[in-house]
């Protein structure tokens, strides 16, 4: 690909201006959001770009870890806010995201598939954290709505001598499935309908397609493993808040 600088970006912005004019002309009512979105994403991404340049330049392990912890905290806060009905949703999400990241990145590092360099850790960490955040928010939301919507079924089970784990198993499974649906669907369509972002980016940056595919496969498996761990941790912690050790539903 040709060398990219701010001039090329300015040309790309022309596309957005065109889109905004089109939206206005057709009275879609989205022109204002488009305009704000254009500026906002530009500012956010450029700021992140400079921040990453800075961190990459330091090549300091603690700076990498610090960056990832900050990303996890933002992700956990966002997930916690989405699952409003779950007590300590942000704390739960943090533990879920942290565990998912630790297990997968730790394993990849341990097996020598990646190195503890910002170039690997930050983009992979970002993807893991983003997907784990989504998954744990979805899991907690679904768990709450299913359990609060099925009190009679659950308390009937409990009254028949079942443990809280047995009485809630269906809803636990459904919540995890809801959180992983995105990942599971991704597997079905990957390469056929959509080319994943990481792969597209690598091909654009000049990598050979096959190499891009191999890296994409590794990234895909790693993300799925991380999301699975995060989803299970989020569900386990959230569901424990809804029952007492005496097999009582607390909602």
């Amino acid at each position, binding site marked *: 690909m040709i060398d990219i600088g701010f001039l090329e970006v300015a040309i790309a912005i022309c596309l957005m201006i065109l889109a905004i004019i089109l939206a206005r002309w057709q009275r879609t009512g989205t022109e204002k959001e488009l305009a704000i979105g254009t500026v906002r994403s530009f500012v956010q991404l450029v700021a992140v770009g400079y921040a990453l340049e800075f961190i990459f330049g330091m090549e300091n392990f603690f700076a990498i870890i610090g960056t990832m912890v900050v990303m996890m905290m933002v992700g956990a806060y966002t997930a916690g806010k989405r699952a409003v009905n779950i007590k300590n949703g942000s704390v739960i999400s943090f533990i879920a995201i942290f565990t998912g990241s630790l297990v997968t990145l730790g394993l990849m590092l341990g097996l020598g598939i990646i190195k503890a360099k910002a170039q690997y850790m930050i983009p992979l960490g970002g993807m893991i954290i983003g997907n784990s955040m989504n998954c744990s928010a979805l899991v907690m939301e679904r768990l709450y709505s299913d359990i609060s919507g099925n009190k009679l079924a659950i308390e009937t089970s409990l*009254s028949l001598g079942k443990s809280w784990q047995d009485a809630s198993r269906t809803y636990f499974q459904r919540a995890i499935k809801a959180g992983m649906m995105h990942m599971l669907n991704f597997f079905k369509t990957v390469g056929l309908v959509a080319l994943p972002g990481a792969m597209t980016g690598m091909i654009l940056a000049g990598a050979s397609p096959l190499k891009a595919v191999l890296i994409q496969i590794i990234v895909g498996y790693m993300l799925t493993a991380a999301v699975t761990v995060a989803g299970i941790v989020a569900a386990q912690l959230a569901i424990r808040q809804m029952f007492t050790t005496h*097999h009582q539903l607390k909602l």
Partner: protein
Amino acid sequence: MDGAHVTTPDAILDIKGLNRSVLVKPGAKRIIIDDFNFSFSEGQIYTIVGPSGSGKSSLLRLLNRLDERDDGEIIFQGESIDSIPVQALREKIALVFQMPYVFPGTVESNLLYSRSKKHENERNELIDLLNRVGLDEMYLPRNPENLSLGQQQRVALARSLSMEPEILLLDEPTSALDPGASRTIEELLTNLNQTMNLTLIIVTHNFRQALRLGGISLVLIDGRIIEAGPTKELFENPANEQTRKFIAGELR
């Protein structure tokens, strides 16, 4: 009734100083069971009668520990319910809800639901359970979700009986049913009490139903027992002003 407490020799469930409150807002407590004292005898029928919101459901939920009491003692067969594992307690003190919930599957799977331990159930045993609630073996393979509410409530009743409980708690077991189905359930209950010597504690907001069921009634208002005694005498000649108001339909 409050304060004075007499433990009868054949008490199966002895309740002393039972209290439960809930937090309605942070810092704002609401008392829903207020110093409840009573001794339930084995093999009797009890009805707990009172207007809606008086704490009847809350009381039953404390007895099988679906909810936790704030303080007070609940002694089941001479033992505090705290020293009995909760799951075992719920098999001994079974609760049937107002709205029957049937698990998807068959009537048979519902009857087997509570008994994962003893798996090789005799088919005859299941048929016997169905007969006790006025159904027959034709029902075993049926999907209970397609049954009428009255039939679902009978399946729920049979499912609770499969645990061989000592006490059966029923929370307005007929209020979701039509009058015909209600009478059937009432008759089934008095029958179960007589044939199995099963202790029944039945919640109802309808004192006429209590009269049909007989036994002993407790009138519960605002979480307190205001009057208790043999059902017929109690409702024909209430001593308490509030009981009279309740009978006259002034309390809902």
